[in-house]
């Protein structure tokens, strides 16, 4: 069993080694595809491709100030940018729409004023969503330039604040010195005022004492005079009251005796019940002072000697108040503080990204993949269908059988191509419909316009299939060589990734491939949302490619299969 197994393995290896097509497909095809992919995606991974990618950036200055110059200067520091000033926004947009530039920067009117007033402002960056790498690079570079400007603005504000701080500090120091001087002056004034006050107070005290003595004497004299008058009047009135008061007291003593006699009689009459009679109220005894007042003449009024007049305290309080008023009137020369200018904080300068055609700046990945892989598989299908189909017919003998019939050669070939073209158009249409249904790909403002590049690329692919059939000696040659050619065209032409990921030299090569023009047209219609007229040039290029392939293919085909 092992022997037979080994023999079979050896046989299959020998078959493989002698199958040039298989070997080509096993080795050359992956090498070509990986080379194309590697070179294409090198810029994406930041590889050194010995080529400096330069991005063209038109700038529109609607602001009219120096901001545009500052931004330009900041951007010109980047060697990968080709900055140029254009006159109007419309001109800049036209450059981007015409794919002569990937992005355009507009500095709207009033930007500088808004920033000066501390209001946020925005730069407008028009980008092409299809040119992914361009868009990312421009966004980053403009943001970087904006940051450079912001740094400069911050530095200016810091310097201004430092200057103002120094001014304020100097003024405060001057103020402090002034206050110190004022304090010293006040102390001197207070001390001098105190001394003056003391002197004044002594003088006032002396004067007051003198006045007080004079007043006291005058008051004593006036009081003695008044007292004498009062004594006389009192003695007169007391003398007038003593007689009636004596008579009353005498009558009161008589009445008391009579009451005591009556009460003793009453008790006697009450006999055994006398103890039940309560004691009668006692008559009050006339006070001795009244007795003496009646008996003796009224005493003269005794006046205090040297009545003291207390008029000093109010005067001292008045003097203290005068002291206080005198100190408050000190004239102080306070330095005029200079208020610093209001520092306006740096306002934010944003970058507003706008898609060149008004659509979203971010794209649906399927908008790239659905047309890209539809084109790839259409071309592969067309290669196999047309080239292998013709070779199959040749091998089957049906081709010669038809050639021997009374039908023009052109009808034979064109008939076959027309059927494949129809199938290709249907295939692409179905794939786009599936892409729309499943992945919501954009079909653009005019979905019917997609038929233009579809027809173009299918025509080119059909003609390419004829060319392959005319060149290839056998189907063994068609499969590997055709597959490599189509995979390369698809990769370089931007079917698998955005073409702007590729280096410039590869994009130049890509112009020779119909896939490039097809993807350009699909991107215009689907991603950029443009109308049919935008893809006329690309579609014309597709038909031109197809016409060239068809002409060469037919010529070679006629040469190979010439009839009588």
């Amino acid at each position, binding site marked *: 069993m092992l022997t037979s197994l080994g023999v079979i393995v050896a046989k299959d290896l020998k078959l493989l080694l002698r199958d040039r097509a298989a070997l080509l497909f096993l080795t050359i095809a992956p090498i070509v595809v990986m080379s194309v992919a590697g070179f294409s995606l090198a810029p994406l991974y930041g590889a050194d491709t010995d080529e400096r990618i330069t991005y063209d950036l038109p700038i529109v200055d609607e602001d009219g100030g120096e901001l545009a110059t500052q931004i330009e200067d900041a951007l010109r520091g980047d060697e990968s940018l080709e900055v140029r000033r254009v006159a109007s926004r419309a001109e800049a947009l036209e450059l981007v729409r015409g794919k002569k530039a990937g992005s355009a920067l507009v500095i709207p009117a009033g930007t500088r004023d808004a920033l000066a007033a501390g209001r946020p402002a925005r730069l407008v960056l028009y980008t092409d969503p299809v040119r992914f790498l361009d868009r990312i690079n421009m966004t980053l570079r403009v943001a970087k330039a904006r940051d450079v400007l912001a740094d400069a603005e911050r530095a200016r504000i810091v310097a201004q604040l430092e200057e103002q701080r120094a001014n304020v500090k100097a003024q405060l120091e001057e103020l402090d010195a002034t206050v110190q001087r004022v304090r010293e002056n006040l102390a001197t004034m207070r001390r001098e005022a105190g001394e003056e006050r003391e002197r004044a107070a002594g003088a006032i005290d002396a004067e007051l004492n003198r006045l007080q003595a004079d007043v006291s004497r005058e008051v004593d004299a006036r009081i003695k005079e008044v007292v004498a008058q009062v004594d006389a009047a009192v003695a007169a009135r007391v003398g007038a009251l003593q007689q009636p008061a004596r008579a009353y007291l005498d009558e009161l003593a008589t009445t008391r005796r009579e009451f005591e006699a009556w009460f003793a009689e009453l008790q006697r009459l009450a006999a055994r019940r006398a103890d039940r009679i309560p004691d009668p109220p006692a008559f009050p005894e006339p006070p001795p002072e009244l007795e003496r007042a009646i008996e003796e003449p009224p005493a003269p009024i005794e006046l205090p000697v040297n009545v003291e007049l207390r008029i000093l305290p109010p005067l001292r309080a008045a003097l203290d108040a005068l002291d206080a008023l005198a100190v408050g009137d000190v004239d102080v020369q306070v330095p005029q503080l200079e208020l610093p200018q209001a520092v306006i904080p740096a306002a934010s300068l944003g970058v507003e990204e706008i898609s060149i055609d008004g659509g979203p700046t971010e794209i649906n990945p399927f908008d790239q993949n659905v047309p890209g892989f539809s084109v790839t598989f259409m071309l592969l299908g067309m290669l196999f269908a047309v080239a292998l189909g013709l070779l199959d017919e040749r091998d*089957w*003998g049906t081709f010669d059988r038809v050639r021997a*019939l009374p039908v023009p050669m052109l009808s034979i070939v064109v008939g076959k191509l027309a059927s494949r073209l129809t199938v290709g158009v249907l295939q692409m249409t179905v794939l786009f419909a599936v892409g729309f249904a499943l992945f919501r790909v954009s079909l653009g403002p005019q979905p019917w316009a997609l038929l233009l590049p579809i027809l173009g690329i299918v025509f080119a692919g059909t003609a390419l299939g004829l060319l392959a059939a005319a060149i290839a000696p056998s189907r063994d040659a068609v499969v590997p060589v055709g597959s490599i050619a189509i995979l390369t065209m698809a990769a370089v032409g931007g079917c698998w990734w955005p073409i702007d990921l590729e280096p410039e030299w590869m994009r130049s090569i890509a112009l020779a491939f119909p896939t490039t023009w097809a993807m350009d047209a699909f991107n215009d219609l689907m991603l950029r949302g443009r109308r049919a007229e935008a893809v006329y040039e690309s579609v014309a290029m597709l038909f031109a490619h197809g016409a060239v392939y068809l002409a060469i293919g037919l010529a070679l085909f006629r040469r190979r299969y010439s009839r009588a």
Partner: protein
Amino acid sequence: MQTCRCLPANIPVAPIFRQSRRCYARGVPAAAAISVDRLVVNRGGRRVLDEITFDVAPGEIVGLIGPNGAGKTTTLAVLSTLLAPDAGEVRIAGHDLRRAPQAVRRSIGRVPQETALYPTLTGRENAAFFARVGGARAADARRAAAAALEQIGLAARADERTAVYSGGMQRRLSLACGLLGAPPVLLLDEPTVGVDPQSYESIVAAIRAHAKGGAGLLYSTHNMEEAEQLCDRVVLIDRGRVVATGAPGHLIRGALPGLLIDVVTDEALPRGWLGDLAGAREIAALAATGRTAPHGIAARAALEDVALAPRVLELAARERTVLDFRVHRPSLHDAFLTLTGRAPRD
């Protein structure tokens, strides 16, 4: 089905003939269906056909016989208009091949060596397609296809894909496609290779019927017995040249009059083993090929009379041990071998 009163009732007539109001079977009885005059074809710097000349008359089946590389396929390619000749004149059904290739194409039916069918189409679809491309209207094509399929016995399986047909059925269908429109000239390139006896009979019957209808047939084959039985005349071709032309019997008699005796010995007989025997001669060609019989080595001699056979055997027995022998009439194969020195399949 459109028919011509000059043809058998079951043979459909091509629309082109109806349109041209010409009947090839009646209109050109005296002219050759195929006329090849000093035809020259060079390919890759080599002369493939070197001034070959032959004719095929209407109603005649002419065999084109030769070894591989003799120029048979090239000749058929030129007659089919698939290859432009470098010199010479070719007329098909009266049409000059250079000046009126489309008229030539309308006049020929072609049955190539390969089956030349679309494997994913049904038999009916294949036949209808070739009829349509040949110029028939859709309805006429359908009728012609049905008639052709009926003629070669494939009507019952007409709606099956030809990929599932046996080799013999595919050959029959290929012939049916060549017979569409009853062309006045039919070019056949080994149409019976690898077919079963039933299909062979069906194919041969159809070919004979078509020839009987007045068409001229050029039949390329390796099978000498088949050519001898089927062909009215044969054109022997070798290295791009016509070696001989004529009826098989005539050719045989011209190349090998009398009888042949094949003697099988244990070892090869030496040259001159017949000595001076009158009425007998050694066929060098057979000896040169060193052909081996099943039990030994065969030698061949031509005899003017069957009575010489014992003497020949006696001479052979003197040299070697005779294992077997056979006395027979020469065939076309034998004639070809004699004329060219090699077998048709060499």
